[in-house]
């Protein structure tokens, strides 16, 4: 009887939602457990890192790694799991695109630290104490890991075989991907394991998506009562659907709110934010500069709206002209 393929789930800079997504297999988890040998899954099972280290390279069939990469330990774990796994799969928006935490790439690390430990309204810290990577307290030496200046996607650190998108990926998408893996029916390396069409294809509101979009106004969701049957765009509400990969079956429109783009782009798009900017902003009714400006003011935060999940993967990746602090140049 051949050994069951070994599978691992691991988390880096993650919120835990991707682990919950696997737990949400619910009763179906039993089928997965029967088909594979889960060698590690930190949130639910105990395992020994030493045992994983001791495994021969490429002995793990697939590791699904979620979370962005922000510390040196996460880089080390990513590299180790890359060595040990035949397939390293970036699981979820943070590993694939940087995720919401990669919005931090719009701010210097020092600003984060200064606000959190000195300037926040509830902080009382006259001595301006900061957490230290190495400190001595009451005579004891203690360490903390350091975190980087830049939030990174998994493939900006190691070679990645496949991507399972979503924030988090749905159980359906995940089961399909694991199924494909077990049957050996995988697409070419580098593929995203979800349908390669825009979300509009799966959205129940597609029937009344306007053939010719012509926005006279952009409404923010709290400024209007959203009709549960009409296409969001038809109501003047910014929806990332046209620039977002399908696979979730339009979960957020199912909750009567617009898509925010968590599945990332289709394969034909390199920069998701630029593409949705192009599509939405091109299609205004206004033709005169001042009027155009007025309509576009309805989208007050292009970075947070168009790059909500994908700033880490975007062409610019990080706000320009921000320092990278090293031990040598930090004051």
């Amino acid at each position, binding site marked *: 009887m051949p050994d069951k393929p070994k599978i691992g789930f691991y*988390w*880096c*800079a*993650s*919120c*835990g*939602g991707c*682990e919950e*997504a696997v737990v*949400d297999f*619910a*009763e179906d*988890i039993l089928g997965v457990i029967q088909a594979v040998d889960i060698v590690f899954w*930190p949130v*639910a*099972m*105990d*395992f*020994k*890192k030493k045992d994983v280290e001791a495994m021969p390279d490429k002995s793990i069939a697939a590791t699904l790694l979620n979370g962005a990469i*922000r510390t040196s*330990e996460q880089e080390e774990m990513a590299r180790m799991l890359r060595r040990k796994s035949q397939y390293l799969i970036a699981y979820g928006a943070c590993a694939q695109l940087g995720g*919401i935490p990669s*919005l*931090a790439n719009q*701010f210097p690390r020092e600003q*984060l*630290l200064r*606000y*959190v430990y000195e300037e*926040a309204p*509830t*902080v*009382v*810290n006259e001595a301006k*104490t*900061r*957490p230290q990577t190495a400190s001595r*307290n009451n005579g*004891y*030496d*203690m360490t*903390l*890991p350091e*975190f980087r200046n830049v939030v990174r996607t998994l493939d900006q650190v190691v070679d990645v075989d496949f991507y399972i998108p979503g*924030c*988090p990926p749905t159980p359906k998408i995940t089961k399909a991907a694991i199924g494909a893996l077990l049957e050996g029916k995988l697409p070419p390396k580098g593929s995203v394991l979800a349908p390669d069409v825009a979300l509009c294809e799966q959205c129940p509101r597609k029937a009344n998506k306007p053939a010719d979009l012509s926005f006279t106004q952009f409404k*923010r969701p*709290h400024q*209007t*009562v*959203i009709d549960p049957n009409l296409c969001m765009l038809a109501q003047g509400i910014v929806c990332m659907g046209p620039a977002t990969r399908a696979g979730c079956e339009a979960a*957020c429109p*199912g*909750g*009567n*709110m617009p898509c925010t783009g968590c599945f990332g782009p289709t394969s034909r798009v390199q920069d998701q934010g630029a593409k949705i900017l192009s599509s939405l902003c091109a299609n205004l009714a206004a033709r005169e500069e001042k009027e155009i400006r007025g309509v576009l003011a309805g989208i*007050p935060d292009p970075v*947070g*709206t168009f790059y909500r999940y994908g700033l880490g993967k975007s062409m610019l990746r990080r706000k320009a002209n921000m320092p990278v602090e090293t031990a040598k140049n930090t004051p």
Partner: protein
Amino acid sequence: MNPEATKVWNQASARANADAHARRRRVTIDPITRLEGHGKIDIFLDDQGDVERAYLQVPELRGFEVFSLGRPAEEMPQITSRICGVCPTAHHMAATKALDALYQVEPPPAARKIRELVYNTFMVEDHALHVYILGGPDFIVGPQAPPEQRNVAGVIQKVGVEVGKKVISMRRRLRELIAYFGGKVIHPVLGLPGGVSKGLKPEDLPPFQALAKDTLEFALFTLQVFKDIVLKNPEYVKLITSDAYTHKTYYMGLVDERNRVNFYDGLVRVVDSGGKEYAKFPAANYRDFVAEHVEPWSYVKFCYLKPLGWHGFEEGPQSSVYSVAPLARLNVADGMATPQAQKARDEFFNTLGGKPVHHTLANHWARVVEMIYAAERIVELINDPEITSANLRVIPSAKPTVGVGVVEAPRGTLYHHFETDDQGLITKANLIVATQNNAARIAMSVEKAAKGVIKKGNVSEGLLNMVEMAFRAYDPCFGCATHSLPGHLPLSVSIYNRERKLLRELVQNA
């Protein structure tokens, strides 16, 4: 000896003593397990092998408060929910309430009821996650059981496959309710200032009514499981009431207008270690009472009662440390708002010797009492005729300035504070997350537990787990506490002798 030589001698001597002092015996648990988030524990032993100090360090940070700058405030419920994928609904709801305050709108009654329905549903399924999967294994299987059994599989072995399936199925159905209103259960989308995005269609009501009934049954069943496995076992009861796991601190929680526990709304109430009310305030005034202290050895900040000032990791009359979450909530309230929960709560206090209860491990029991309350609330709300109303939104018209929202997350009081410009873009954000409120007490609990169970240099894996039990009782969410991304470090326990020679390394699961 001439004075110069004496001076040099004294300096060298002082240096050597300082180094020797630093080279104490040290035990590290890294990372700690079966929680949400990331942490490590450093334990320092003295020459006799007894514990001198212990530190719980939380090693990560993300910076939500900073990268939220410039974002439209109405997006904050969905942005802050990414602080934690285990309790996204808590952040979502706190942020939504902060938006209500920001725009000075009250949701229509039906919208408020839907929010409460979703929220209590979330409380039941999240508490169930902790009871059966995260913290519960310590009790259901036993704290010194081998690690391969100290997880949900071990729990299922102990309680039976049928019960295991029931837990899984119950959580699934509850989460489907949340997904109905919120589009998806992990990172739901329903919250808006002045309302919710989606209502309940009358034809969809019957299955949810059935779910409500089953949920209450399940909560009562969980209490019975707890009583049969934990309370009937004298060893466990001894553990729960032992001094190693007891702290006398202040307690904080939300209460309604009759001082009964409420997860969704109310005033924040603080009682002292004797159970007397110390303060009661609306969310907007939180800064008068809550302050954060910074230590160099941890990324998590430690909350304390601001008027009293920081007095260190101490308990007793001088201390300003307080605690939140199920035990705290029961301690601050005068009762429960629903009958079965009230009964369970009375039994809790009668058994443990009256209010307030200071035994940290009693959090597990308090958690089950809360499950019953949340389940009864679900039954009340789902059978309220207004729950299917279509009047769900008030469109804000006031100019936004500042708003504070507070809810009781499963793990404790959660504050979201937003300030915006005229356009409603965030100019300042401050988040006090449940586990931060507990951080100081958790640190103390870990140290006290370490001192209680590690003696004369005897360090075993089972004993280390008992140290971990001290923090696990709080059901901590360190991802939340540092608004950070939990990651995962390998777990290792390193034992050094006084010459900093590594004697032994215990390698445990990550």
